[in-house]
């Protein structure tokens, strides 16, 4: 007994120390994510040129010391445009995730906890929505709302919501039938206290990591829609719009497609990596 307790205490202290010993990939991901977050907050501080100043004399110059990532067909600095586009791309990703999680939370809890006549229809609708590919669902909503940054945000959010809703529902059902929830009923707690103290936090536990994972994915979805011309329109430096604008010159200016694509990949990978890491650690503390 004492042996096992000291063993666990040692494991706990090792876990604490290892906070400062995160894997290299995670450390790099955090740096990349911080860079983009900084770019989103103060683009002026990180950019070298104005994103909108045209300079026809130096149009379509390849990457060089003057223009780090080259220029586009009317001579705008690509690096600065990517930096200035970060805010919109990240906000769409974050916003889409917020829309997805909010609607998924309401639907998921309702499907798990509401009386049958509410829960059953919700459950069926979620199943039907899950049968459609995410992109198709998002396209449907863009078609309904018209192309704009806001509609992009809602479309991607609603498109990814059914998957999260099913996950929340499954978690809630599991927690609802757990011994500690029954014990709380037996103690005489009212239903809303049990929901607040036990069901919501325990059902949400695995979703903390999903949030980080989802931001990366949402950025990819949103850029994809913009690239198809269904999101933010080209004068804006949003990353998907950059890709869409550059595709006309792809044969002479490869950098116009590669660098915005790299930015999207970096954001998606770094947030996914961070999300995975959080997920592993949360599970680790649950099964210590």
């Amino acid at each position, binding site marked *: 007994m004492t*042996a096992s*307790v000291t063993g666990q205490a040692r494991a706990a202290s090792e876990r604490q120390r290892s906070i400062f010993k995160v894997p290299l990939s995670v450390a790099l991901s955090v740096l990349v994510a911080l860079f983009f977050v900084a770019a989103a907050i103060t683009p002026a501080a990180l950019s070298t040129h104005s994103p909108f100043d045209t300079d026809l004399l130096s149009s379509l110059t390849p990457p060089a010391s003057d223009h780090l990532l080259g220029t586009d067909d009317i001579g705008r600095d690509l690096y600065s445009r990517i930096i200035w586009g970060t805010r919109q791309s990240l906000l769409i990703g974050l916003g889409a995730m917020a829309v997805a999680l909010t609607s998924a939370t309401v639907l998921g809890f309702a499907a798990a906890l509401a009386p049958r006549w509410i829960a059953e229809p919700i459950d069926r609708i979620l199943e039907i929505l899950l049968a459609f590919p995410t992109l198709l669902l998002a396209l449907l909503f863009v078609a309904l709302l018209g192309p704009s940054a806001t509609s992009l945000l809602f479309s991607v959010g609603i498109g990814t919501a059914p998957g999260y809703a099913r996950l929340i529902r499954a978690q809630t059902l599991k927690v609802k039938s*757990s*011994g*500690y929830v029954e014990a709380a009923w*037996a*103690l*005489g707690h009212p239903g809303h206290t049990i929901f607040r103290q036990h069901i919501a936090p*325990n059902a949400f536990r695995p979703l903390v990591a999903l949030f980080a994972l989802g931001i990366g994915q949402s950025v990819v979805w949103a850029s994809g829609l913009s690239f198809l011309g269904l999101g933010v329109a080209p004068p804006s430096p949003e990353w998907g719009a950059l890709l869409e604008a550059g595709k006309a010159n792809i044969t002479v200016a490869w950098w116009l497609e590669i660098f915005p694509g790299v930015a999207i990949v970096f954001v998606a990978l770094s947030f996914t990596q961070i999300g995975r890491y959080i997920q592993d650690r949360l599970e680790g503390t*649950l099964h210590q």
Partner: protein
Amino acid sequence: MNAFAQAQVMSHDGMGASRLILEVRDLNVWFGQDGDSRRHVVKGVDLELYAGQCIALVGESGSGKSVTARSLIGLAGAGSRVEAANLTFEGETLLGRSDRWWRHVRGSKIGLILQDALVSLDPLRPVGKEIDEALWLHRWGDRASRREKILKILGQVGVPEPALRAKQRSGELSGGLRQRALIAAAIALHPNVVIADEPTTALDVTVQAQVLGVLKQMLARGTSIILISHDLAVVSKLADIIYVMRGGSIVEAGPRDRVLNRPRHRYTQQLIDAVPSEHTKGTRLSADGGVLRPGLFSQSRGRSSNNRVPLLDARNIVKTFRSPDGIRRTVVKGVSFTLARGETLGIVGESGSGKSTLARVALSLETPDSGEVRFEGRIWTGAVPAEQRQIRKRISVVYQDPLSSFDPRWRVSRILTDAITLANPSRAQDARQYAAALLEAVGLEPVHLDRWPLQMSGGQRQRVAIARAIATEPEIIILDEAVSALDVSVQAQILDLLTDLQAQLGISYLFISHDLGVIHHMSDRVLVMKDGKAVEQGTADQVFYHPKHAYTQSLLASLPRLEYAQLRMAASAR
């Protein structure tokens, strides 16, 4: 006193000139890598086994009894190191043997029966096939003769209609039949030695009696058995020699009657004393106790002094459930009982008898299909939720598995303060202090407040569960198999604790258990359940000494008892 010498003396007593089959000298087993993490789990064990003899390794969890037995068939486990001065089976050493050699010996010369047949049998394979595989692996006979053999063995272990059963999968068989099928697979090749690791632990008493009968027949046919068990009563039915293990060492060894009647080691005596039964009623089972502060329960709460109305009164409870295949099954069929203030009502029955459902109805966690439960005369099944909650605070519950009844995000302090402030919001200020007092009352210490339940032992967790149960100052505690998963010495401490709390706080218990000894030890009155019906109800002594219903009689008849107990009674009478 040398354990070996004692065992030898015994074996020549009644056995005549029997043959030494297995000899173990100075067996040591370590787990883990060298260094800190390495654990010495079996320390210098000596054993010997003669033909047709049953030796028993008795001890609590972590005593090393299972590892000792598994070392004898080369299955000590991954990362283990086994050393011995002598490890000889039928004249051949068991040390340093290859896997290939072991595969030949296992099953054909040494058989192994595991505790849980449901896990040990392949759920997708008919049990006949399971036995067939044992025979086939050792190249026994052709297909037709193997089939004949399978039916014969199943018949031998008391499986009715062997031809039918052989075709069924383990999930389709009852617990008792499964265990017998497992025994059949282990003895198919007539091994000289069978190691039985807790062979009856997961079984109901009537089934347990049948399985013990099968093992007895095996002994009579000349098979030697190494029995591993924590249950002294089971051991007393079968064993010739008992080895008592603790912390990896054998603390006492000797012939059964001598060990049980005149134990020489203090630990053996403790183990024997800790077994609850009809003889221990009203006595303490352990030496340990909690510290109950005066004024633990507030004086202000209005306890009605009306003793004519029973505290809890359940009338004609009927509860049905719809199973996944759509069939409605009636789980509780018209059961009535009452529980008076300060009284313990024991509810005893085998698995599936409906006793836990009855408890959930009594807690109003399930609404009965018909019938009602009254608390102090007020109906509370189907009352409005707010009123139900008021009554729930006066009835607590303790489950078999305390860990799953704690929120994994909460430390002990939060678990307790949550219950304390719920029942008595005015305690919010000093809830933590009160939680510490509760921990002391259940024999823990204030330092445990900051522990996670995961870091605690089974007994400590159950104490926390009891502390939470009394935190709301309840009048009734429902104990649903609350001590069933505990080691016997821990169980003894918890039972004593419950007895103390009842004496000092006047709490009534609804004590649910499948363990007849525990029920008799704890209960004032007893309700016997079978298939959802209350077949018998009465005072504990009435029910246990003069059972009226045939089912109660058969339950009591199949209960293995410590035979020594009568001797002890006789000795103390003199």
